[in-house]
């Protein structure tokens, strides 16, 4: 293990933990934006994905995404169950850290990507169907796309497509799936007529903070070594997020509205999503431009759903889809080999070919993810139905899908009612309970 650099290893492990933290952060970010009857259903979408996707990643996902190439389209199964993914470095991916460290860092990306999609079908999807969709999407879309762009031998990687931390693999792919979801699953009951007001914006702000914090692991960690490139990606992450807060808020204010807290938070996320593919290829000055553009473009992008009448409930398309595309194209414009010698120069540095390659890469993935998502939804709908029933939708996902509620602030134990646990677990004890009920409820026995 003489090649292992302890500084790099420490940095990547900490970065992996930071990226993991983003998914519970996303759960709060999304959870605050839905109505209170759906807060747990929304949080659960992200949370259960952490469990399921990580297990699948260990079993076969990592091998198919990053294992030895087949036809430039997918990895093979030789690393199934992490066989051979050991403590020695994999020199093709990250020569100075244990292969296991690279694998677990990548696992966190595989987790958050499908979780991002869930904002598009918030407040109306049947839980079982959601699980089937997410697993199918992970296998059919995420794994191949990760291989195409990041896997050794992947066809987009071979073409020279640059995606530093997942503008294509994470944001554009999930954004395209979100558009398919919003169109296929349909509008929430009452969308466009009834108020659908975020129930807890402070929760969304906490989520924004966690996402932002974790994004330093996402982007800087993608340098896979602790050094100057990581520092550049770290700075770019901060610069773009802050620039996008400013531009989003300014445009929102100028357009006759007021500067909103939710807008500022959304601007930050748009800036972070947009800088993701570029973080390790552009200068901080370029990141400033990218961030400013992200705030403006994504602000207008989220209004498209009202124009076209699809209910992308939490604006996954406008923020992540559009941000991912914008960021990927900006690499073709602004990338510089002075920042990253393993990258390429963009248009302003005299290379006119990169922008076309970037466009091809991102649009191929968007189209593939969109169509594959529609097909998966169609199949899931045939099998189980994608939506909860109307009554369950009105009741809310918390009660109808999970038998719990997010908040009981009544002070009266409003949700408690009667204690029936004994009945739930044993028919024997339910008899006992009913007998004792009868005896204890006679007026003479009352204390």
């Amino acid at each position, binding site marked *: 293990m003489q090649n292992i650099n302890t500084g790099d290893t420490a940095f990547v492990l900490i970065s992996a933990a930071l990226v993991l933290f983003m998914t519970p952060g996303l759960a709060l970010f999304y959870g605050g934006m839905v109505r209170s009857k759906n807060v747990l259903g929304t949080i659960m979408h992200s949370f259960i994905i952490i469990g399921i996707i990580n297990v699948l990643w260990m079993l076969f996902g990592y091998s198919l995404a990053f294992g030895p190439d087949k036809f430039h389209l997918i990895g093979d199964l030789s690393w199934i169950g992490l066989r051979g993914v050991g403590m020695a470095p994999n020199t093709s991916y990250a020569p100075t850290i244990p292969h296991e460290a690279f694998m677990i860092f990548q696992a966190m990306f595989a987790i958050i990507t499908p979780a991002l999609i869930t904002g598009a079908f918030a407040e109306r999807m049947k839980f079982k169907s959601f699980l089937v969709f997410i697993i199918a999407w992970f296998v059919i879309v995420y794994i191949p796309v990760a291989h195409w762009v990041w896997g050794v031998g992947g066809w987009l990687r071979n073409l020279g497509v640059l995606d530093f931390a997942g503008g294509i693999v994470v944001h554009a792919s999930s954004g395209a799936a979100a558009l398919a979801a919003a169109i296929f699953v349909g509008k929430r009951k009452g969308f466009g007529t009834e108020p*659908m*007001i975020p129930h807890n914006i402070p929760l969304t702000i906490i989520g924004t903070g966690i996402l932002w914090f974790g994004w330093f692991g996402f982007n800087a960690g993608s340098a896979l070594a602790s050094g100057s490139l990581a520092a550049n990606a770290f700075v770019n992450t901060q610069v773009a997020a802050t620039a996008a807060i400013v531009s989003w808020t300014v445009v929102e204010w100028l357009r006759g509205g007021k500067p909103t807290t939710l807008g500022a938070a959304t601007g930050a996320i748009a800036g972070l999503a947009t800088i993701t593919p570029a973080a390790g290829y552009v200068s901080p000055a370029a990141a400033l431009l990218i961030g400013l553009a992200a705030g403006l473009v994504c602000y207008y992008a*989220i209004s498209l759903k009202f124009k076209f009448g699809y209910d992308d409930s939490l604006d996954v398309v406008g923020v992540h889809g559009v941000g991912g595309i914008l960021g990927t194209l900006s690499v073709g414009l602004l990338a510089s080999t002075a920042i990253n010698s393993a990258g390429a120069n963009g248009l302003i540095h005299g290379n006119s070919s990169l922008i076309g390659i970037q466009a091809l890469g991102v649009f191929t993935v968007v189209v593939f993810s969109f169509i594959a998502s529609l097909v998966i939804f169609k199949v899931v709908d045939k099998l189980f139905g994608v939506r909860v029933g109307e009554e369950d939708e009105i009741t809310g996902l918390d009660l109808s899908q999970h038998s719990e509620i997010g908040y009981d602030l009544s002070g009266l134990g409003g949700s408690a009612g009667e204690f029936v646990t004994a009945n739930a677990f044993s028919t024997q004890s339910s008899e006992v309970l009913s007998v004792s009920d009868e005896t204890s409820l006679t007026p003479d026995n009352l204390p």
Partner: protein
Amino acid sequence: MKKIEAIIKPFKLDEVKDALSSIGINGLTVSEVQGFGRQKGHTEVYRGAEYTVDFVPKVKLEVLVDDNLVSQVVDTIMDAAQTGKIGDGKIFVFPVEDAIRIRTGERGSDAM
């Protein structure tokens, strides 16, 4: 015996309560309510989606008084709760058949 129910602006609650205390009213019930009348609601905007919210938050205050105190209590509430702008609220007066103090069983004026 009458029940006086007043729907007032929430920020006027303290003034009304103090004014009622000063004329010897020593018990009342308050609840947070929402409703609409002539006062318009407000607009909320979330990521460009604009909503008009018709219901305006108000405080409902209920106080039980003997018949001879009704006009004094009504005047006191009016003085304290008035801003002169739309949305100051309403006062309703209801006859009350009986009142019972649960602890002792006292009835009528004795229970107040």
